[in-house]
């Protein structure tokens, strides 16, 4: 890249990033308990409406049970429906942007894939016909991400994104067909709607040991979907009651 970015202050060009010494042993130990506790005691903290200049926003803090220091923090904001310029469209256009606010670990190609996956899900879920000539923009900011880069397991993050977007859309008052939520099992994420009878999105990672058992995977994901959805709906009802 020869073109320098004149819009940002980039610092000296010959600077090298800090390279940290590889820890030798701890790698294996950390991974194992994480996989196990994933399903059993996961806790979710939800707060809506933190970003005041967005139409709707949600804040999610996911903790993996007793390993309470490792938490995923995701801030979702929804802007829209706002008028879009240009040619007439009978449906709203949807865009999803994903950004890591602090540590940048996820390669940009995968970021794009996540965005595509999520916008596919929510194109099916948002009642886009209700909002002609408008655009709905969803911004995801991952503030903290406990998983490490070379593992590449994005599934807890993707599941959090699905839940976060649903909450933010609800906060923005944008019409959705159902409270969509996602469940994870091993390296798969399945997003469901209609009480688990409809699958709206399926993410399967490459290094997956559950090759052919797709029905099994869906059943297992459904369990955690139902759990997540219950938490979301409970939160929404509670916050509505608090408003009244």
């Amino acid at each position, binding site marked *: 890249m020869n073109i320098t970015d004149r*819009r*940002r*202050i*980039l*610092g*000296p060009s*010959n*600077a*090298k*990033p*800090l*390279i*940290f*010494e590889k*820890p030798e042993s*701890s*790698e294996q130990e*950390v991974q194992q308990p994480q996989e196990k506790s994933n399903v059993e005691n996961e806790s979710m903290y939800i707060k809506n409406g*933190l*970003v*005041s*200049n*967005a139409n709707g926003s949600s804040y999610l803090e996911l903790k993996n049970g007793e*390993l309470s*220091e*490792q938490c995923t923090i995701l*801030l979702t*904001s929804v*802007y829209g429906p706002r008028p879009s310029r240009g040619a007439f469209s009978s449906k709203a256009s949807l*865009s999803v*942007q994903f950004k890591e*606010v*602090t*540590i940048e*670990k996820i390669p940009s190609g995968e970021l794009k894939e996540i965005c595509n996956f999520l916008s596919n899900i929510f194109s099916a879920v948002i009642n886009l016909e209700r909002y002609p000539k408008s655009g709905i*923009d969803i*911004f995801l*900011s991952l*503030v*903290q991400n*406990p998983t*490490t*880069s*070379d593992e590449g397991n994005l599934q807890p993050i993707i599941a959090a994104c699905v839940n976060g977007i649903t909450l933010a859309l609800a906060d923005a008052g944008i019409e959705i067909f159902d409270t969509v939520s996602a469940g994870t099992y091993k390296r798969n994420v399945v997003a469901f709607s209609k009480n688990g009878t409809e699958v709206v999105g399926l993410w399967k990672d490459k290094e997956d040991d559950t090759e052919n058992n797709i029905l099994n995977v869906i059943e297992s994901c459904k369990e955690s979907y139902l759990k997540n959805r219950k938490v979301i709906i409970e939160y929404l009802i509670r916050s509505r009651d608090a408003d009244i």
Partner: protein
Amino acid sequence: MTDSIELRPISFHPDVLARIAPDLSMQRHLSLGLRPSLRSFEEFRNVEISDGGLSFASKSDIDRKGNNILGSNVLKCGKTMVVTSITGGIVEENISGSYVDDESAESSNGADRLSRFGQIYPVVEVERGRVGAPTDEEMTLSQRLHDCVLHSGLIPKKALDVAVGIRSTDSEGSSSILYPDEEESALSSGLKSRRKWTYVLYAKIQVFSRDGPLFEICWNSLIYALKTTQLPRAFVDERTADLKIPVSMRGRSATIRETFDIICDASKFQPLRLNEENVAFASNFAIIDIDPEAELPKDGDEMQVDQGSSVLLADIQGEAEEASVFSTISVISSESGRLKHFKVVGGSSNASIENLKKSLNLARLRASDLSAKASNGAR
């Protein structure tokens, strides 16, 4: 058509009025002795800070792998939320053959003053629901933060020097790292004198819920983040320390170039030493003239129209205030009243000496309040 046209006053909800006629909304509030944010004139917003546990050195972060954040801060001021993370890099300094020591080379004139201070390279991003190139505001904010850090003399250049240690592995395979400042005698290789490295600090500042001017909030968050910054110890491997690579250019000259892989120690770190007396915090003020015509009609006939009276407002917030205020003061002051930055935009109102004095005093009080927070918030 003899219908008389009836004129009726229109009334708006306060939020609507603030959007369509910010100056009127502002004046109406001021005449009640309040501001649109319902604060009093010289009242600041409360600031909550935490280090967010984001940095690699923070105790709560079990998983240090892949974490290259050296210092962090999460600041909440009203609704506005700022996440600052400081990352680093290492740059090799060019040392000419006739290299003289720092102390003798230092001269006292103004231009050279800056060469003694370190810089930081900030990138500010304000979330406003758009994608694309940085906005003007983000660019000016980044540049202003960069300039202010450099000119305030906050970071001494020496604090960014890397004391490169050497890792030696003995015959049993266990390795130990020697640092030049820990054991003076052990490090006798010529490495230290021939090569010099310094840390480069980058700051990534993410702002959510923008609600008024941001420079002061970003600055304060940056200062808090720098206070938590820990620099990792760095070393080179013994085997690579004497590495020489001969490079021959068309058989003519054989230059020898050494390359070092500097590795950082994830478990050993030391705090970034700031010039404590130069640690300062920012606050902003607005001067606004009270328009007697916009006042709500008072009962009684006390017509005390004090023409041209202006008030000083601390900590600008909200759409109505930002849109209707043209005279602003921005101060970066330390606890003891050392001024690091002072910016006045005259605008339409009269920035009188009294108002300037008052703002400086308030800025000092605010700075001592904020710096007390930093020491309380320390882990």
